């Protein structure tokens, strides 16, 4: 089988297992939805009636395939709480989460790339050591802690930026960006550390190659050697790490949306969990997991496009 077809089959299998596992976690674990909806005073008949209405009296695998069938046609059911279609709820909140993650990546790359380039100019030099220590420090900061510290610094002490709340882009680009600065800093200030370390170590490897020596022998200034010759071949691992980090970024987004009261998918999930809104939690978790798998798949593909060797030698840790 050709490489691409094999990868697609693998993708489909993983997606199937992931949705099945989501379904099982949400459905096998204790906590009867009917009791949650009706309250503790409900009679057994009422409970049995509602379970039948919701289709909960059928075997789990049957329900799973039902759910999967409608999910494939774009229907994740309706929230038990307010009857809102789950798909609509996710679509409404997705732009906020995406904006947060993209801005966080911009912050992370915006710090990581210059710092890595500057620190390989003199490995072991002053800048290299300071940036390595800074990275070590930021790496030890949980995002919920950094978020609180940033709110304390920028909102409470100096009153520069709003502490919580979200302004949609339609009500002014600047207000929107202002409400997203602290959240994206919270995520980006932690993520740059990993990216910087990876890029730095790859740059150091690349700089030992002959073509760098040649570029230097031609008399190119060091910044041109770094930017034009060394950066591109050193960025393969960076791209992989960017893909792998998306899982952490999604988890971070859940926390950051909660800290800064941003109406994103993460807060939708948390709200669903607190309300015991089974169908909403199931849909959201499945959506997040499927999104994550697909993004990782695309990153793998991108990697193969950039570096044809990958297509022949599968890398496995």
């Amino acid at each position, binding site marked *: 089988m050709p490489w691409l077809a094999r990868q697609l089959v693998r993708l489909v*299998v*993983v997606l199937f*297992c*992931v949705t099945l*596992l*989501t379904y099982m*976690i*949400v459905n096998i*674990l*204790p*906590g009867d939805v009917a009791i949650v909806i009706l309250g503790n005073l409900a009679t057994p008949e009422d409970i049995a009636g509602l379970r039948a209405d919701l289709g909960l009296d059928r075997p789990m695998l049957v329900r799973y395939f039902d759910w999967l069938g409608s999910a494939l046609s774009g229907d994740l059911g309706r929230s038990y709480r307010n009857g809102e279609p789950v798909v609509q709820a996710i679509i409404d909140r997705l732009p906020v989460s995406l904006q947060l993650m993209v801005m966080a990546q911009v912050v992370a790359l915006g710090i990581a790339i210059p710092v890595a380039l500057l620190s*390989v*100019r*003199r*490995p*072991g030099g002053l800048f290299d050591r300071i940036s390595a220590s800074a990275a*070590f420090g930021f790496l*030890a*900061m*949980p*995002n*919920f*802690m950094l978020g*609180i*510290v940033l*709110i*304390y610094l920028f909102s*409470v002490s100096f009153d520069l930026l709003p*502490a919580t709340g979200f302004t949609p882009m339609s009500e002014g680009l600047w207000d929107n960006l202002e409400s997203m600065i602290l959240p994206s800093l919270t995520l980006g200030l932690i993520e740059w550390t990993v990216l910087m*370390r*990876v890029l730095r*170590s790859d740059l*150091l490897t690349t*700089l*030992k190659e002959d073509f760098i*020596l040649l570029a*230097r022998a031609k008399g190119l*200034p*060091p910044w041109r050697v770094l930017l034009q010759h060394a950066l591109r071949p050193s960025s393969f691992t960076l791209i992989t790490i960017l893909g792998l980090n*998306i*899982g*952490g970024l*999604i*988890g971070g987004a*859940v*926390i950051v949306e*909660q*800290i800064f009261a941003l109406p994103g998918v993460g807060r939708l*999930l*948390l709200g669903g*969990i*607190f309300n015991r809104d089974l169908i909403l*939690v199931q849909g959201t*978790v499945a959506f*997040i*997991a499927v999104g*994550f*798998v697909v993004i990782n798949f695309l990153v793998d593909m991108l990697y193969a496009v950039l570096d044809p060797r990958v297509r022949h030698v599968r890398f*496995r*840790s």
Partner: protein
Amino acid sequence: MSASAAKGAVVAAPRPRRRWHWALALPLGWLLLVVFLAITADWIGLPDPSAQELILRRKPPSAEFLLGTDNLGRDMLSRVIYGARTSLIVGICAPILGFLVGGAIGMSAGYFRGKVDMLAVGFIDILLAFPSLVLALTFTAYLGQSLFNVTLALGILSIPAAARVARANTLAWANRDFVLAARTIGASDWRILTREILPNLLPPMFAFWLVAISVIIVAEGALSFLGLGIPAPQPSWGGMIADGREALDVAPHTALIPAAVMFATVLSLNFVGDMVRNMVDPRRSAL
């Protein structure tokens, strides 16, 4: 370009690693202090971490309350120390659970190869297909909140990483001559796995465990911060930071003190973990 810059860029100067040894005293001392206080919390005359004194709420640090009081007038010092107990219990036990299960999976995969390996790698891929925090949230939300369930959920989360470490190392050791020798004299698979391969897995697994502790402490903090971790009256650093967030403008110490303690602990753990990893596996010191 100056000559020294060019030289520096080409030859990466190896950093002197010996100088780090004495710098280890501070993080190690802090960790010992945290562990000591967490163990002896009941016997050092601390006030009840759950006892509320609403008149004395949000008091800044003073002689009476060394770290001040929180939103409900509870003693912060006592809560931070009992919170350390929570963090350490979860942080130490969850990775052990993950290592027992993940280690077994990884070792079988690396030793038997073939179908077993395929199944194990598939299983790991599926678990890794979930963003870890989302999986942890879902587990604790449906298992119910308790110290045990949080530990269980985070333990399950550490299975894939543990399995990978075990698998990679088993693959490397399983082809060595002494394993072949053991097989030649008729040792069973079980005996080879437990007597020949397992002892060699312990050092990398131990180094990894140290890193896992700090990751799990952060994850427990995140769950408790979101209100889905350790249930309310029981002190937890993440929960304390979440509580303190409400009063960030009037009593910032209620959030910043547990945040600082958590930061110091995670930083120290990473520091010691890096050291141990460098000692165990010199190749990884490059990163």
